[in-house]
């Protein structure tokens, strides 16, 4: 035991995250994040590996412990070390992050390794590269489709077209493309009077609730691509629920959260979108707005992946002011009390089989829907267990991953079928696709139920 060679001070509990942390300049030429403390903190307990849904079914995949700390060390010690191509088999569910008892930033390590693999090792002329790029830029396809949604809906599920996509691009023809709405959320929002309309309705709510009409209750809604183009009813429910509680809602300019881009190692694309989102959210945060997302992968990106991967002005402020939609209300309003007095009748007076998305789990939100709704009159809700749905965004859309995706999802399908409810519920759009694909159930978002319970 030598006292002389004391290591530089860092807290192994929270590597590379504290403001006090000063990395030693071990790799002076590198602009990358220094993830050494993360690698050093790993004591190989393998808890992360037991959380990996891919390693449970895929004999090619070495698991998160290898992808993270072990590969990071290999990269530093061997000059010509190439990132192992298995990093593309990680679905970016991020379950390992929440698992590590030692604070190793596993998903940050995976994201940086995957980014490096795609930018330096993957051929830009390969089908895989372009397939992944198209899948991860869903917003662009959705934007195009929204210009003529009916035509797009017919074309996207047209058999021969899907056969060609499968054969030439490796996009599975097993799944149905989600339908595009004939009116996007943003179009609806403008027709409702935008921010000015929301302010009027919020003030009226505050008066009805006996609150100060001038109360400073305002939020910026990050609707994400899916609520805008595919399920505007979720966005509408968000607006109506928040206005019911007296919040003024604004809907700033925004791009994709970047979630599918991280998962495909398209970090340049992700950064471009992140810069646009941060720039629009940071101004609002400065004015006292909090950012609210209804998709748990979007909130995850703004909260955790942005600050872990990008050094953008305002990124930390936006991160600490971003919340998931139910979570925020639970912190700021007595939702439990109001729900206690509510009862649901009509279309949503049903039993629900609820699945917590992995990204909700990683934000500590996996129990909130069940805890909120379990005592509401007129509805029932049951958790279908802690397994991953298996689709993980773009993962389950890839031909070569489809079978694995369904194998991972089998446990959830089985539990859904065992549950009383024959309607599914989840916060994540792609989990919803998988739930519907595996069971044929109609899948709803918790905000829709909250709207049914609380909004006249």
């Amino acid at each position: 035991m030598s006292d002389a060679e004391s290591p530089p001070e860092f807290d192994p509990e929270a590597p590379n995250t504290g403001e006090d942390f000063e990395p030693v300049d071990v790799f002076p030429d590198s602009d990358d994040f220094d993830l050494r403390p993360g690698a050093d903190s790993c004591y190989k307990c393998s808890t992360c590996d037991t959380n990996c849904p891919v390693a449970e079914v895929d004999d090619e995949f070495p698991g998160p412990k290898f992808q993270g700390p072990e590969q990071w060390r290999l990269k530093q010690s061997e000059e010509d070390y190439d990132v192992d191509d298995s990093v593309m088999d990680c679905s970016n569910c991020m379950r390992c992050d929440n698992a590590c008892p030692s604070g190793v930033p596993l998903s940050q390590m995976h994201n940086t390794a995957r980014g490096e693999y795609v930018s330096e090792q993957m051929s830009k002329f390969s089908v895989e590269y372009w397939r992944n790029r198209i899948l991860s830029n869903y917003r662009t396809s959705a934007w195009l489709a929204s210009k003529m949604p009916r035509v797009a809906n017919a074309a996207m599920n047209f058999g021969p077209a899907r056969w060609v996509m499968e054969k030439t691009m490796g996009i599975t023809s097993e799944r149905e493309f989600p339908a595009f709405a004939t009116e996007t959320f943003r179009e609806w929002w403008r027709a409702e009077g935008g921010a000015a309309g929301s302010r009027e309705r919020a003030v009226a709510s505050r008066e009805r609730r006996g609150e100060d009409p001038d109360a400073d209750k305002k939020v910026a809604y990050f609707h994400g691509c899916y609520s805008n183009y595919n399920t505007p009813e979720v966005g509408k429910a968000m607006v109506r629920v928040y206005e019911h509680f007296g919040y003024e809602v604004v809907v700033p300019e925004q791009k994709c959260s970047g979630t599918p881009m991280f998962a495909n190692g398209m970090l340049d694309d992700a950064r471009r979108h992140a810069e646009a989102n941060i720039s629009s959210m940071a101004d609002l945060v400065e004015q006292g707005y909090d950012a609210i997302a209804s998709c748990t992968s979007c909130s995850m990106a703004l909260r955790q992946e942005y600050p872990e991967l990008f050094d953008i002005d305002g990124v930390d402020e936006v991160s600490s002011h971003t919340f998931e939609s139910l979570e925020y209300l639970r912190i700021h309003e007595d939702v439990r009390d109001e729900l206690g007095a509510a009862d649901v009748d009509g279309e949503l007076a049903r039993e629900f089989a609820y699945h917590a998305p992995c990204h909700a789990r990683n934000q500590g939100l996996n129990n909130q829907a069940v805890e909120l709704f379990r005592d509401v009159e007129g509805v029932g809700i049951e958790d279908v267990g802690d397994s991953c749905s298996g689709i993980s965004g773009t993962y389950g859309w890839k031909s070569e991953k489809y079978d694995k995706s369904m194998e991972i999802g089998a446990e959830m399908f089985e539990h859904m079928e065992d549950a009383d409810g024959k309607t599914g519920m989840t916060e994540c759009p792609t989990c919803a696709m998988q739930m519907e694909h595996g069971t044929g159930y109609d899948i709803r978002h918790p905000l829709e139920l909250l709207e049914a319970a609380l909004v006249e």
Partner: protein
Amino acid sequence: MSRWCRTRASPPTEGTMAIESEVLVIGGGLGGLTSALAAARAGADVRLVSYKQSTLRNASGLVDILGYTPDGDGPLTDPYAAIPALPAAHPYSTVGVSTVRDAMALFDDVVPDYRGSHTDTNALVPTHGGTLKPTARYPAGASAGLASDERDVLLVGLESMVDFDADRAAEHLEAAGVPFDVRGVTTSFPGDLRADAKITRYAKLLDTDGEVSVKGRKRPVRAALAERVGRGLAGEQRVGFPAILGDDNATEIREELGDRLGADVFEVPMGPPSLPGLRLEDALFDALRRAGASIETGNPVAEFDGDDRIEQVYIEKNGAKIPNSADQYVLATGGLVGKGVESDRGGVYEPVFDCHVPHAEDRYDWFDTDVFGDHEFARFGVQTDDDLRPTQADGSAEFENLRAAGAVLGGYDFAAEKSGSGVSIATGYAAGRSAAQEAQ
């Protein structure tokens, strides 16, 4: 050294109201879960918050009460009989033997598929190192392996699982004088699994009875495994596998393998990560959900308000501070492994509330130079009053509404005594019940 955790509150995220409960339990291991269950069953509105996944995943899944005295005498036959003679500072002395019994009754009531409650006597369960561990409760899956059973045993090792050397374990058991013959064989697991396949991969394959490729033919894995092991069987009536036999359908898998082998099948508890530990964790969380508690995992308690009394704590999420308030609090954050007790060059501390942790000034006194010697660090933890409230150096309570449970407590060496689970369950139960009574 930045002690990020030991901070009284800076201003919270604006405009927030606290998430409220009557009892707030901090920590999601055996101590925290038992505490929350006991409080919920006593009628309290309970919330449990936990930072990372608990150390239960690293635990064997065996639930011990006391295997050896602090002086090293043992293995003990009756742990309850030995409790009254423990030192005054021991957590069992604080709660008393009848509380230990009540707490174990709660455990037996909420956790299915455990055995051992029919007797006060310790069972001796073979471990993956070939030792015999005295334990009060054990998973049903381990029950056919008990050393008190006189039927001969075949231990099955898997080539890729280097943690379990079946031959060596068998030799150790023989040397320990078990009353039966024991033999080890090592085989390869059927199929093309990678050499470093995760325990969850084996478990999933067995759970779903998935197909594996054996000599170019597709076969269900359970049948293929039984066939391979059956070839090495020489009349033994019991067969022990490393604990990888399924997660959700463990009983069914054991029974099917047993039928095919014509022998009773058991699991040998393994080191981390451990499926029996995982199954126990799942069972306890399920029980807590059924008891109506609210649960939040994934974010740390970083700060608190209060002087003599804890007013509220703050959960940190990516820089936002979310207040949680309760009438009563239970600290069940674990010990040195679970990071409920931390140390640096300056001293030993409890990171959430900075409760007093007695320790020698000179850190070279914290350990013994003999590896298996009497280490002071093994007993590091908070000291409490009779009601499990952590005390300051002068013996007065740190906070009137904070109790501590599990490995964050000092005064005992769970690794040497084999008392870790029992202390967590007993003190968790006592702290949870006491908190619930006070909250009402």
